[in-house]
C-alpha cells in the first residue's frame, strides 16, 4: 500500500507547417486548394485591416487599437473549421476571425474608434462583443457551451483568451464549469508570449499553458499557433468532440504579438528587438505562402491581385466608417434597459436641452 500512481497525463504539441513552407504529410489535414488559398487570403486581409487601423490611429482617425499582427493563423484556421452556427467569443485581438464570421469591417473599426455601434453586429452573426475585463469572456464561452447543450443545439462556443488571461480566476471557473457540465466549448489561448510587458514565464510556473487542462479533467493540446494547418487540425478535433457532446478542449496556440500591446504602448521599453526579429522569421503568412507556392497554388501575380483587392476592401471599410453619421447623444440612454425608466428619461432630457437637440 505504498506510493501508487493515481494519474498519468501528458500534453502533446502539434506542428505541421514549418517556417520554410514544408509540411508533415502524415498529419496534413484534408483541405481543398480553395480552402487553403482562402485561409491565405483571409490572413492577408487581416493583416491589411490591422495595419490600416494602426495607421489611422497615428493620424488621429481611430482610437486605441490592439494589433493582431502575427496572430492571424489561428483565426484563419478557425474561420474554416467552425460551422456557421458556432459562436465566437473573442478576446481583444480576434478582429480577423470576427470579420471572417461576418462582422462588417467598418462596424468593427467603429468599436475601436470609440463608438458603441461597433458592437451592434448583424442578427445572424454569432459573435459576442469584445469583453474588456481580461478573462471574463472565458466564462461566457463556458456558459454558451452549457446553453447549447441544454437547448439541444449543435453549436459550439469558440472562446479566445490570451496567455495573461490564464492567470485570472475567470479562466479557472470557466474551464471547471465547462468540464463539469460537458459544455460545447473550445477554449483557445493565444499565447503570444506577452501580456503587455509581462512575459509568459512570469505569468505561470507551468511549462505549458495547455497542461492547465489537466486541472479540469479535459483534453489539452499545444499547437504551433503560427502554423495554420496545426491549428486547423486541433480545432477540428476539438469542435467535433464538443459537438459530439464529449465536452470542452483547451488549445494553447503558441504565437507572437509582433506589434505593440496597443497603440498606447511602446513595446520597445520592455522587449528585445532580437526576439521580435526571430519571430518575424516564423511569420504565419509567409509560411503559408511558401507552402502554397511550392504546391503551385500561389504566385506573384495572384499576390499582386490580392493586394489590390484587399487594399480596396480596407479603404471601403474606412470610408464606410467615416461615412457613419455621428452617434446620437440620446443613445447614451436608450440601451440601458428594454424600457427607459423615468429617471433616465429625465437625464436624457437634461442632456438634450444642453446639446440643443
Amino acid at each position: 500500500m505504498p506510493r501508487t500512481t493515481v494519474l498519468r497525463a501528458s500534453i502533446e504539441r502539434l506542428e505541421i507547417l514549418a517556417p520554410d513552407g514544408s509540411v508533415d504529410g502524415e498529419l496534413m489535414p484534408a483541405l481543398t486548394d480553395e480552402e487553403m488559398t482562402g485561409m491565405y487570403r483571409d490572413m492577408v486581409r487581416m493583416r491589411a485591416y490591422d495595419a490600416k487601423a494602426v495607421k489611422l490611429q497615428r493620424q488621429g482617425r481611430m482610437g486605441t487599437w490592439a494589433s493582431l499582427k502575427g496572430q492571424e493563423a489561428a483565426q484563419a484556421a478557425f474561420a474554416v473549421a467552425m460551422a456557421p452556427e458556432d459562436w465566437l467569443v473573442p478576446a481583444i485581438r480576434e478582429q480577423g476571425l470576427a470579420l471572417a464570421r461576418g462582422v462588417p469591417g467598418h462596424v468593427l473599426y467603429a468599436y475601436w474608434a470609440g463608438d458603441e455601434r461597433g458592437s451592434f453586429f448583424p442578427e445572424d452573426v454569432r459573435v459576442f462583443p469584445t469583453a474588456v475585463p481580461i478573462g471574463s469572456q472565458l466564462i461566457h464561452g463556458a456558459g454558451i457551451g452549457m446553453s447549447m447543450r441544454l437547448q439541444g443545439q449543435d453549436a459550439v462556443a469558440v472562446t479566445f483568451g490570451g496567455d495573461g488571461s490564464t492567470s485570472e480566476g475567470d479562466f479557472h471557473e470557466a474551464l471547471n464549469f465547462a468540464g463539469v457540465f460537458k459544455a460545447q466549448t473550445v477554449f483557445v489561448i493565444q499565447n503570444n508570449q506577452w501580456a503587455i510587458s509581462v512575459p509568459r514565464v512570469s505569468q505561470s510556473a507551468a511549462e505549458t499553458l495547455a497542461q492547465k487542462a489537466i486541472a479540469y479533467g479535459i483534453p489539452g493540446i499545444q499547437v504551433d499557433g503560427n502554423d495554420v494547418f496545426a491549428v486547423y487540425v486541433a480545432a477540428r478535433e476539438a469542435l467535433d468532440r464538443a459537438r459530439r457532446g464529449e465536452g470542452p478542449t483547451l488549445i494553447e496556440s503558441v504565437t507572437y504579438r509582433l506589434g505593440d500591446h496597443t497603440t498606447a504602448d511602446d513595446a520597445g521599453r520592455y522587449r528585445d528587438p532580437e526576439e521580435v526579429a526571430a519571430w518575424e522569421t516564423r511569420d504565419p503568412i509567409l509560411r503559408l505562402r511558401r507552402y502554397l507556392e511550392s504546391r503551385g497554388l500561389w504566385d506573384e501575380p495572384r499576390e499582386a491581385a490580392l493586394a489590390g483587392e484587399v487594399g480596396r476592401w480596407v479603404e471601403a471599410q474606412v470610408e464606410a466608417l467615416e461615412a457613419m453619421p455621428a452617434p446620437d447623444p440620446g443613445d447614451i440612454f436608450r440601451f440601458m434597459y428594454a424600457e427607459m425608466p423615468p429617471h433616465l428619461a429625465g437625464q436624457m432630457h437634461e442632456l438634450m436641452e444642453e446639446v440643443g437637440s
Partner: protein
Amino acid sequence: MSTRLAERPEGGASAAHPVTPGEGKTERLTIVRAVRDTLAQEMELDPRVLVMGEDVGVNGGVFRATEGLLERFGPERVLDTPLAEDGIVGTAVAMAMTGLRPVVEIQFMGFVYPAVNQILAHAARIRNRTRGRYHVPMVLRMPYGGGIHAPESHSESYEAMFLNAPGIKVVVPSTPRDTKGLLATAIRDEDPVLFLEPKRVYRAFREDVPVDPYTIPLGEAAIPRPGEDVTLIAWGAMVRVCLDAAKVLEREGVSAEVVDLRTLNPLDRETMLGSVRKTGRAVVVHEAPRTAGFGAELVAQINEHALLHLEAPVQRVTGFDTVFPYARLEKLYLPSRERVVQAVRRTLEF
C-alpha cells in the same frame, strides 16, 4: 421528469397573465414559500426558465427556496453548480444572451463579491454595449440582511453598490404576496434583476397569496400603512420594523405613513415624494451602513424635489458604519422599532 429547454411556447408567457392578483383561490404562504412556488410556476409557464446555484438541486437550497424543483423539472433545469459565484453568474449571463432565462441563487448576499465583475461589468452592460443586439434576462436571487444570528458575511446588505452602477434592476419584496408578483415580473423582465430576499422574515409570517399567476410592475412602491404626520421609507425586512414603529407612534398620537419602496431601481420617486410632500417629515430606514447607503440617495432626492415641503431634516435610521457584528451584538446594529420611533420624534421636535 424534465422539460426540454428549447421547446418554448410561441410568444412566451409574459402576456398571458394578469398584472395584479386576481380574485381566485389563495393560499397562506411565507415569503420563502412564495419564492419556491413562483419559481415552480414560472418554470411551468416558460420552458426557458432554469434555476442554478450552489446547493439548489438535491438540497433544495440552504433556505429551501428551491425545494422540490429538481424532482419536478429535472437536472437540465435545476443546476447544482460548482462553488464559484463568478462562474455561476458568468455562465448565466451567457445563457441569458443565448435564449435561456436563468434564475440564479447566490447563497447569501455576503458571497456576491466574487461575482461583481460578471454582474456589473457584463450583465448590467451587455444591452448597452451591443446597442441592443444582446440583452440579459436573468434574475439573481439573494437572501440578504441580518437578524438570524449567522456567522460573519452572512448578514450583509450590499444593495448600494448595485444602485450606483447602472444597468441592473434591484427589487426587494417585504411580503409573501409581493414576493410572488415581483419575482414573476423579475423573471419575465428582459433585463437583469437583482432580487433581494429578506431572509430574516423568510418565515416570519404568512399571508394569503393568490394561487394563479400574477405580476406586480417594477418601479411601483406600496403604502402598506397610510398616515399624515411623517413618512417612513423602507424596503425588505425594515418595512416590518417601520410598521411596528408606526403602531407605537399611533399610541402617541402620531400618524405615520409607511412607504415600502419594493423596487430600488427603478425607483418610484413620485410615491415617495408625494408622501413626503404631504407629511413634511421623513425617516429613511435601512440595514446597510449609513454612509453612502441608498438612504442617502433618497434624502438627496427629497432635498432636490421636496425641500420646501420639509418641516425637519430627513432622518436616517441605518446600520452603523462598521462591519456587521457577529451574532452576540447584531441586535444592537440592526435598526429597531425604538430607533425609528426616536428618529420620528426628532423630526417632530425639530
